């Protein structure tokens, strides 16, 4: 009996393999949508790691908090203030969620990480793990443990192909997600590459001590990095809410780890790498659940993380780490 279990074929390929190109195209669309969300979260990880060299464990939970903020604001706007035009409500929710999530992230950095700068190496990481646990349980305490569903929005679909073996469709929410991601990444890229603020950030990333000597307020720059990461996580949270239609206090951990995987895959510290990594992880996850086994889709993500870290620790676009004595 135990031997049957051990040697029994576990990964039976699903029937969907027979559905051909159309099915594959549909999965690619779904994968890009999911990957956009992962990419937005991954930027927060990669920027913080680039600037202070710590894995901000609480970032996944900041993302979860932002999804809750978006949900509550959406309810307040539609039921209390009575905005009926969905597009307007969406834009207001997006902006407000970015603001309030930034306040959270700023406070977390100020209270839990800044006092530990210069402390021993594991301290910020353990503090971040504690913060992550605190955030999840705080949301559970104030918002309750149940799933929070919202009414579906942007749900109309456009048929891309029809008449074949499988109709490829594109839902409006997928268009919204991809469009918002592209717009925000452009804005964000402009800030990092073209403004004095972005220059200060890149300077701190290269050499914090030297940047401080040259008159850059390093603490302020780090705070702003956290705020930017949180703002993008808030966008991801709002989009996640639209895509999946509900949110739960425990929803921060798994997307957080996957986004971190994306950041590592793209090369930690590299912002374009985080986006590419996010898209890749999203696609791999969707294709894996479509063709192989949806039970093991998280195992696939974790396995990618391990494989990448072992064989390609600098990632796709990252710089190799040189060990100096």
């Amino acid at each position: 009996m135990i031997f049957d279990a051990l040697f029994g074929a576990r990964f039976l390929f699903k029937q969907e393999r027979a559905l051909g190109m159309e099915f594959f195209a549909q999965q690619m669309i779904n994968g890009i949508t999911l990957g956009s969300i992962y990419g937005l979260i991954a930027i927060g990880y990669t920027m913080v790691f680039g600037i202070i060299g710590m894995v901000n464990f609480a970032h996944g939970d900041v993302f979860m908090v932002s999804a809750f903020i978006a949900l509550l604001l959406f309810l307040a706007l539609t039921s209390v203030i009575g905005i009926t035009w969905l597009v307007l409500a969406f834009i207001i929710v997006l902006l407000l969620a970015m603001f309030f999530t930034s306040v959270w992230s700023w406070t977390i950095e100020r209270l839990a990480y800044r006092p530990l700068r210069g402390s021993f190496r594991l301290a910020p990481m353990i503090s971040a793990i504690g913060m992550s646990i605190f955030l999840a349980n705080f949301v559970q305490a104030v918002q309750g443990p149940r799933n929070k569903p919202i009414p579906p929005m942007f749900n109309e679909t456009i048929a891309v192909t029809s008449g074949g073996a499988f109709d490829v469709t594109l839902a409006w929410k997928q268009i919204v997600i991809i469009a918002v991601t592209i717009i925000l990444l452009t804005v964000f890229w402009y800030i990092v590459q073209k403004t004095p603020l972005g220059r200060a950030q890149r300077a701190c990333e290269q050499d914090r001590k030297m940047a401080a000597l040259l008159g850059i307020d390093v603490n302020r720059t780090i705070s702003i990095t956290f705020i930017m990461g949180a703002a993008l996580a808030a966008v991801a949270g709002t989009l996640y809410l639209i895509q999946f239609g509900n949110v739960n206090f425990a929803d921060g951990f798994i997307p957080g780890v996957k986004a971190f995987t994306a950041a590592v895959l793209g090369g930690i510290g590299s912002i374009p790498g985080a986006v590419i990594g996010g898209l890749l992880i999203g696609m791999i996850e969707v294709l894996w659940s479509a063709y192989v086994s949806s039970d093991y889709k998280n195992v696939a993500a974790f396995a990618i993380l391990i494989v990448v870290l072992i064989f390609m620790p600098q990632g796709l676009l990252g710089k190799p780490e040189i060990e100096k004595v």
Partner: protein
Amino acid sequence: MTAAPPRPQTLGEKLPQALRETIIAALIAAGLAFPIIALGAEPDINNQLALQTRWSWVFTTILLAAGARFLAFTLETMRSRFVAAAGLLCAAFGLGTWYFAGVADPLLIGGTIVAGAAAIALGYFIDGDADVAPKKRTTVSAQDDTSTALAFIGIGVLVAFPLVMLFAFGEAGSLKWINNYGVQILIFVMLGWGLNIVIGLAGLLDLGYVAFYAVGAYTYALLATHFQLSFWICLPLAGIMAAFWGVLLGFPVLRLRGDYLAIVTLAFGEIIHLVLLNWVELTNGEAGILSIPRITFFGIPFTAEENGFAATFWLEFSPIHRTIFLFYLILALALVTNFATLRLRRLPIGRAWEALREDEIACRSLGINTTNTKLTAFALGAMFGGFAGSFFAVRQGFVNPNSFTFMESVWILAIVVLGGMGSQIGVALAAIVMVGGTELLRELDFLKQLFGPEFNPVQYRMLIFGLAMVLMMIWRPRGFIATRTPSIFLKKRKAVAADLVGEGHG
């Protein structure tokens, strides 16, 4: 990197800054609290979310944040901080009574608030132009080695513990103390000591330690249910199995360091958890493995029958016998872990671990085989995790994947870190405080009177746990026992202060 803003020196500077900081804290608290505390959403009958507002909660949050900031600022900058603290306590008492009791004596409330405010004002006034001297840090403190005597007393207390409890509370009353406190804490002490080999001695940050605990538990569960092997045969097998998995994990991660290593071990732990959850044919999935054979007294079962433990030893049958036996068993296992660790530290391999923690490159330059050193640390740490796992399975009688989540890993890690990495006694203390502390939360009935009958402190244990981890890192990042006793020394054994201990680079 940049210097903190200069501390205010005079009364004229201090008070306005204190007030400004307080107002900023209140504003930030308002920003934090606005959507997520002020608004609540509960599904109604149609499963539509209905919005509720909870402004009183927001008000409380803002007050708390402002008060905490004012307190922190005052304590930070004032020399006469005790006067100020007393004043704040007074004021807080007054406000608290007002808030909770509603119609208490107005004279008392007003009096305490005024007295508190007066005390704070007095504190600021006395402080005047004094400046606050920075704290001095000692780097090396010499101390005598009294730990051996303490260890023997500790073991004596532990051996006597179940019997004392039995006499004090009777058979029914002592079950809770021996099982929930004694056995539970000792499991975590053992896991902490096992992980301490990997983190504290070898300096490899392992966030997936629970995987080995799970391997041990499932090894015993599967072998015992399928092949009817006894616990005493399964125990070494579970240890070997876990050590094998430790090596399997160790091989690929040899090149990784620090945070990367932490993340990979986390991923490994999650994979094991997900496989246990999804491989239904082997592990029975979420339902887990039920009716695992219980512990026997070296072959004599703890039953009421003729050949049972009670009858064999001419005792009256009681379920407490098994619990007491389990207590001594885990105590023995934990002490074996401790003894092995202490001995290993003196062997060449143990010194290699500690050298690896201090500086990997120097280690390699001196000809230490870092591959073997890391692998043995992983394997031995995992082995003790496996022992603890099979003990867990035999104690519970069933196992399911929910016992082996990432949170369990974090618990064990927190115990090691809060205890002070590398310090055996510190880890034991941390396990007692943390596991015992959360168990104690169940007993805090007076909180129910304060916050109403629906308040359940156990609900908030993870919240408190997370917050405690953050605060502990800020307050004492090196753990309870921050000093280290070197295993080799010249003439006199001296404790090494925290600042001088390398923390390892993974």
